């Protein structure tokens, strides 16, 4: 990734242009909506990728940051009339602060212990919001629908503006992830992922860098949360703070290819349409066939591409340029009976 090849850059630009053009040609709301979900989950999976894929902290509590972002901006808008764009930033900051507060005592937790702690944390957050009268408790918050305009982050005539805003957010998340991965932070995160010991003896302040990772991830997740609130215009703990939502984020990221820049987005591009379209086509019959197909797809990917679909794509892309990165290894493999 150090030297981004021209080929990849061209593919990236072409895909971006196609995405920009997409809603101009295919304007049925259902397709645009699916794409918006792809971008949103792509962003959430990218945010997860920073802590899970790079730093090896497998958080199952991402939905809490998403929810905190949604609630912060929505509450400020509903009760104090704060502009959602400002709410977006404040929500990100709130989520980052909460992430630091919960991340610090979890500094020594690794692997599944960390995962369990994040599940507990997210559930606590959900229960708190479910009972917190000031933010609507279980009834949730309904956002006002006056003055639709860009400056109010509100559009009621078309999904197009949401589409482009979410695409912009996703690109922002990817840019952040790219710079994290290719900076001192990225190297340190990957060392921490291997073991705290190896990181520490190279002078890495493990506690500090783990906090940075969760804070960046929380901020980005919260941005997606504010977007969701402005898009759906109604939030309650059961829509923005449920555990399965966190699981889906992890699944998308892992199956797409955690630890690579584009893997999680690819995961979203495969799993979200698969889930949406099977639900649309088959879900109404009430037979659960859509879930069967979706589950089957997940099983297939995890059986054949446990490292993520991105591995397959990048392998095809690399074949021409770097056929033998490890000639000795290749020789050793062929030499075996």
């Amino acid at each position, binding site marked *: 990734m150090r030297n981004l090849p021209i080929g990849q850059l061209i593919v990236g630009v072409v895909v971006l242009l196609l995405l920009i053009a997409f809603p101009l040609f295919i304007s049925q709301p259902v397709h645009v909506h699916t794409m918006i979900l792809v971008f949103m989950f792509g962003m959430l999976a990218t945010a997860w990728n920073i802590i899970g894929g790079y730093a090896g902290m497998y958080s199952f509590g991402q939905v809490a940051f998403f929810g905190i972002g949604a609630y912060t901006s929505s509450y400020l808008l509903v009760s104090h009339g704060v502009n959602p764009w400002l709410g977006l930033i404040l929500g990100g900051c709130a989520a980052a602060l909460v992430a630091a507060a919960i991340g610090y005592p979890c500094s020594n937790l690794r692997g599944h212990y960390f995962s369990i702690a994040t599940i507990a944390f997210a559930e606590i957050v959900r229960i708190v919001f479910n009972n917190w009268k000031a933010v609507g408790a279980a009834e949730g918050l309904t956002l006002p629908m006056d003055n639709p305009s860009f400056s109010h982050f509100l559009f009621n005539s078309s999904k197009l503006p949401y589409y482009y805003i979410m695409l912009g957010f996703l690109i922002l998340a990817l840019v952040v992830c790219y710079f994290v991965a290719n900076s001192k932070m990225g190297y340190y995160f990957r060392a921490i992922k291997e073991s705290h010991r190896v990181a520490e003896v*190279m002078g890495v302040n493990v506690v500090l860098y783990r906090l940075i990772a969760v804070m960046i991830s929380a901020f980005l997740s919260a941005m997606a949360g504010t977007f969701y609130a402005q898009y759906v215009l109604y939030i309650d703990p059961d829509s923005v703070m449920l555990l399965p939502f966190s699981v889906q984020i992890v699944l998308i990221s892992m199956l797409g290819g955690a630890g690579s820049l584009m893997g999680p987005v690819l995961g979203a591009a495969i799993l979200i349409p698969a889930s949406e379209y099977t639900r649309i086509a088959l879900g109404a019959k009430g037979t659960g066939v859509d879930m069967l197909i979706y589950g089957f797809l997940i099983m297939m990917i995890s059986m054949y591409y446990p490292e993520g679909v991105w591995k397959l794509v990048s392998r095809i892309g690399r074949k021409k340029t770097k056929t033998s990165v490890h000639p000795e290894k290749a020789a050793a493999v062929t030499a075996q009976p």
Partner: protein
Amino acid sequence: MNKATCLKVDGLSKHFGGLAANSDVSFSVEEGEIVSIIGPNGAGKSTLFNCVTGVYKPDRGSVAFFGRDITRMRPDKVCKIGIARTFQIVEVVSEMTVLENVTTGALLHHSRIKTAIEKADEILHFAGLYEKRDFLGTEITIADKKRLEVSMALATQPRLLMLDEAMAGLTKVELREILELLRKIRSEGMTLVIVEHVMEAVMQISDRVVVLNSGKKIMEGKPKEVVSDREVIQAYLGEKYSAHIS
């Protein structure tokens, strides 16, 4: 020549439950010296290393580095002030290439990726690993892994390098290569403390040897003195080795 005291360990004790892994261990290392710590399995050598580098917190005693008290300092801070180490069971980042591993170490004092990579390349040349820079941490031999771990430690630009069994399990040729590397490191003015079982290496390279047994220091001296000490030979190097020597 009057050289500064690099490392001073004073009355260090560490208990694990009822087991005294280190009790009242004291020794010091002068700048530019190579000091080996030897002793049978379970003598407390690795514990001593871990107490000095902050991986464990000692129960009693103190550790000073160039006169500065570093007792109970966090491992990353210990590294920052100039003590680098390797582990008995090799620790490298398996999902990183050889170059990326060393670059991570170099980032400690060179925040820019480009400079860190240049520095890492320099060290890989020095350690004879340059040809393998694009291999992953999992794809190299154990000898190369040990060499890589030393390179990662060097990349943090230490004044004191502590190696925990860098030569265990190597072939004769590999052993000679790593000894050559250690001599090269030393000629750059580095101070070295090594824990080692391979007596052949200890004899060749050490200025002084500290012998531990059951957590206590029982002898300290020049390599020749140590191996000719009857008690040490019989108790720590075994009857066979004593017969071999005399």
